[in-house]
């Protein structure tokens, strides 16, 4: 069945995604990028350019380079917003015969839907080239506040581009679909969309399989570009203050500064401080000048803090418009690249008192949601065979009370896993297999599912016997645990039926407990691991002394014995660092055994052949 394209037709950038093998994915365009500028141009040589190429020549061809048409699609020319936007755009516009908007490119006048159709046409052609198959249908997203006429015009744009538009969906709804929230019943969701040029807030309510938009708001002229603008302004001012040069007159310097500002913005999302370093940014009578300036995250937050506060005020207003209380909102979704900014995440979190969703790339989440809707039409999302995953890890207890997972949580079942274990003591003839479920590193903190004993293991030094443990969990969640001693062939097994019977709440509780205790558990586990390592080293040292007592000298023997005693003492206590350092001391001493023995063998006559062949 032919694929249906999901398209996020944006004001500044657009993106396309499809569902393949049940998974939505964003498609790269012909230039190898995941987003396409929503820009169309007619070049001087009368060639039509769309996307990045159109953008690259916009400086030299401003009259014939058209962008931001999403602000005009389906609108009346006399709308005050249209008149306002018109002032800041370099291309010509006029009223069409039907009262709508027309833009001029070359000698011809175009309707906004014709321009959008050119962008959509490129997305279609690039997707076809990428997938190697024809695409005839699409799902296209629009802002939630679009009225009928704007939606109809967007649909027409699709049809002009040769796409049958299966559905026009709202951008916030697409974002909710991308996160799979459409399956949650009776939930109220806020979508916070801080894009490049526009800021949109929507309140959604999910009823029985329908997502309803309850209120929308925002600011059509607030976006990441404003943040960039503030940074550039600041950098220019500082430079002028410190160096006395106005860089804003030099187009290349401004261009470099723009890129540096964007880079600094991105870096300050993860780092607390960044350096903007542009050698040879310009030159004056005294020679070349450089641009070096440190910028902190605090400074950036200071520069744009009011924009963020403004956005939160708008959120507040939209929730009031929807006649909801703040506590009614169960989920928050972040859309738009600017939401990567820590300040925005903190403010949103603080305002709602809960974590927003932001697992999916915020630049792509709308296109992905459109593809999910397309996938539903395509029938790809219908699961014939519903496969379960195990909610918590399954494993056994090993030396020192440590929980060793055999099957990690979120593994799709049915599945099975083998692992070979050994004994912890010399001449140990039985092992206990203690089957557990949970996420805590210590066995005692997890839930016991069952236990059994495998005996009849032939006496042998510790670490020698090989006990193979097999976990097998079938599609119904029934767990079989087998243990088999490889030497004797003795086997034992247990069948556990209730391994996946935990309720959702129980699972959640256990996971949260694991997270809450993560630090303390890690320390406990490290101590036990250090102890195990120490025990083993002490055991090895004692064994070595016994084995090689005739071949090593008294000094070394004594040294070893002291170090063993030191280590044994440390093992009685809880100090992990002491155990580790004593273990290291002892193992360094142990290596001397080998040294002494090799030295002895080197004292042998030179002409003696290596130990090889028949003796």
């Amino acid at each position, binding site marked *: 069945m032919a694929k249906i394209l999901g398209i996020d037709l944006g004001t500044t950038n657009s993106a396309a995604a499809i569902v393949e093998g049940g998974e939505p994915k964003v498609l790269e365009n012909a230039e190898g990028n995941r987003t396409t500028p929503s820009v169309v141009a007619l070049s001087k040589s009368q060639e039509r350019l769309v996307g990045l190429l159109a953008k690259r*020549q916009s*400086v030299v061809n401003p009259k014939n380079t058209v962008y931001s048409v999403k602000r005009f699609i389906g609108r009346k020319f006399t709308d005050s917003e249209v008149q306002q936007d018109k002032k800041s755009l370099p291309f010509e516009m006029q009223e069409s015969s039907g009262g709508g908007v027309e833009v001029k490119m070359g000698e011809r006048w175009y309707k906004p839907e014709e321009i959008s159709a050119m962008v959509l046409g490129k997305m279609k052609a690039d997707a076809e080239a990428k997938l190697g198959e024809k695409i005839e249908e699409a799902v296209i997203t629009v802002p939630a506040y679009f009225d009928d006429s704007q939606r109809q015009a967007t649909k027409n744009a699709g049809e002009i581009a040769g796409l049958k538009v299966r559905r026009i969906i709202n951008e916030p709804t697409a974002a909710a679909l991308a996160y799979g929230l459409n399956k949650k019943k009776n939930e109220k969701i806020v979508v916070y969309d801080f894009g490049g040029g526009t800021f949109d807030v929507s309140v959604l309510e999910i009823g029985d399989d329908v997502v309803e938009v309850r209120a929308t708001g925002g600011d059509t002229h607030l976006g990441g570009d404003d943040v960039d603008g503030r940074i550039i302004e600041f950098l220019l001012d500082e430079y002028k203050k410190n160096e006395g040069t106005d860089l804003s007159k030099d187009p290349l310097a401004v*261009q470099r500064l723009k890129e540096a500002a964007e880079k600094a913005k991105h870096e300050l999302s993860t780092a607390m401080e960044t350096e903007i370093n542009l050698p040879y940014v310009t030159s004056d009578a005294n*020679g070349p000048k450089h641009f070096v300036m440190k910028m902190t995250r605090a400074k950036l937050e200071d520069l744009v803090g009011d924009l963020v506060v403004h956005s939160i005020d708008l959120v507040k207003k939209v929730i009031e418009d929807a006649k909801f209380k703040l506590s009614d909102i169960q989920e928050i979704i972040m859309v738009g690249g600017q939401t990567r900014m820590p300040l925005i995440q903190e403010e949103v979190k603080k305002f709602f008192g809960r974590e927003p969703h932001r697992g999916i790339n915020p630049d792509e989440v709308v296109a992905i949601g459109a593809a999910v809707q397309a996938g539903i039409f395509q029938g790809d999302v219908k699961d*014939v065979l519903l496969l379960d995953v195990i909610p918590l890890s399954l494993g056994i207890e090993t030396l020192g009370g440590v929980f060793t997972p055999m099957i990690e949580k979120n593994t799709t079942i049915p599945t099975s896993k083998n692992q070979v274990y050994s004994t912890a003591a010399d001449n140990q003839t039985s092992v206990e297999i203690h089957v557990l479920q949970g996420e805590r590193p210590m066995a005692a903190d997890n839930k016991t599912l069952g236990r059994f004993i495998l005996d009849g293991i032939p006496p042998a030094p510790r670490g020698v016997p090989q006990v193979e443990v097999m976990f097998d969990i079938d599609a119904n969640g029934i767990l079989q645990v087998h243990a088999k001693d490889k030497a004797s062939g003795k086997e034992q097994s247990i069948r556990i039926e209730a391994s996946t019977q935990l309720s959702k709440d129980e699972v959640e509780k256990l996971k949260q407990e694991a997270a809450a205790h993560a630090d303390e558990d890690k320390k406990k586990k490290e101590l036990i691991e250090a102890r195990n390592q120490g025990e083993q080293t002490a055991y090895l040292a004692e064994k070595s002394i016994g084995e090689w007592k005739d071949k090593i000298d008294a000094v070394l023997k004594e040294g070893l014995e002291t170090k063993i005693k030191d280590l044994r003492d440390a093992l009685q206590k809880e100090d992990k660092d002491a155990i580790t350092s004593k273990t290291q001391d002892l193992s360094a001493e142990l290596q001397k055994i080998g040294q002494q023995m090799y030295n002895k063998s080197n004292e042998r006559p030179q002409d003696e052949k290596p130990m090889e062949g028949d003796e």
Partner: protein
Amino acid sequence: MEELEKLKKERDEYLDGWKRAKADFSNYKKDELKRVENILKLSNEQLIRDLLPVLDSFDLALESLGEDKKVERGVYLIRSQMEDVLKKYGLERIPVKAQDPFDPSVHEAVASVESNQELGTIVEEVERGYRLGDKVIRAARVKVAK
């Protein structure tokens, strides 16, 4: 008889599901391989992209110093050494000459300037452009005749 039909139908359904799962898995393995290759390629691309400003600064430095012939030859050698390394990873400079016609697939206009040259031709390259493999990772920044 009805029972037999039902079982047959069920068998076909299961067999089909099993085959699909097998196919999905084998496709997944292939995709995964491609994905890993892509990640390798992409991580190189990111690194190379981040290095481009360094090359630019080098160019600007040489240009600025070169006027007074103050530059030791060794500095030029370091630059070409760096270019050679990046070339090995597929980075190619996009050649630009004055008088070339402006082509947005490889050029980005930063300004249009008065000139006695033919309209729409390149007057000056202000920042080099680069190709990585067959992808233009940065267009050459140019001034174009008005």
